[in-house]
């Protein structure tokens, strides 16, 4: 259930809240825990001049400069996850065994350009 990004002055690139509820997809009978988790997602602008807290690569800084000179020709850099976390899921497998599995890169902690 993604909350629409609040209309604020700063539509800069940053993590937005996205809660995944396993019962919403009818998985609550085989996923023991968690019942859901905060996955989040990245959304926002990467405008010129890119400020330090936007976790930008040198290439993105260059690309925003070119975009500001030639908006039609070169798009803005993308807003993407730059730090992710794993989650553990306890579930019943197809043989009714209990499995604890670690999944990498399931939570967006930080975004960048």
């Amino acid at each position, binding site marked *: 259930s993604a909350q629409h990004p609040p209309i604020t002055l700063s539509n800069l690139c940053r993590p937005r809240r996205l809660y995944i509820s396993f019962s919403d997809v009818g998985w609550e009978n085989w996923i023991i825990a968690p019942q859901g988790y905060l996955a989040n997602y990245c959304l926002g602008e990467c405008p010129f001049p890119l400020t330090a807290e936007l976790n930008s690569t040198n290439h993105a800084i260059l690309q925003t400069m070119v975009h500001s000179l030639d908006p039609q020709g070169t798009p803005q850099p993308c807003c993407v996850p730059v730090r992710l976390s794993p989650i553990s899921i306890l*579930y019943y497998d197809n043989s*009714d065994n209990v*499995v604890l*599995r670690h*999944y990498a890169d399931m*939570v967006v902690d930080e975004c960048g350009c």
Partner: protein
Amino acid sequence: LSLQESLLLKSLGLSAKPSPKTPIPVPPVLWRIFQRRKTQPSMNKEPVDACRVEEFDVPGDIIRVFTDQGHFIPKGQPQGQLCLRKRLYFNLSMLEEDENVTMAQLEIKFHHNSYHTSSQGQIFELRLSQPSQVSLQGMPEPRQKLLVEQSFAQLHKSLLFNLSMVARDWRMHNRNLGLVLEVAVSGGDEVNELQGLCTSIDSFLDTSLLVVTLSQQCQVSRRRRR
């Protein structure tokens, strides 16, 4: 099954959506690991390695606890100090083909009848062996490879044995004949006295095998990192 759901299940390493028929209780060791990970501060900058089980310090991203499906082996005529013989069998066949076993730990829990004063401080002998071939009714017992031989006193704790090599052997040769567990009384002489001491182990014995595996996804990401 909607396309999105099947793709999501596949990315979670599942070929089909599980539909548990007889859900068993969550083994406490899995629950403890799950809770610890959940409370781990996610803001610590050090990224958590999803392909390592810190609790056992082994590579792995999947942990299962297999219940014992073996049966007690009749002792035949009372054999001196022998209290019980049990075949232990853990069905590892549902591990995915591409999973590598990185650790297997056998846990043996005796539900001691601790009110049996006669056996306070009693020492027992435990032997764990791996049969090399199927034993047939009426035929001499096949040769067994002794894995563990140790004595233990009556304690309210589990006995843990590292069986990683055995589990890998089962997987590699696709031959899992289980294990044979024997418990005997140490010392003592009169048969009836011995049998009396055996009852202090009580009839119930709980064994389970905790298995850690490394999935294909992790093997790829580890190779990439190396």
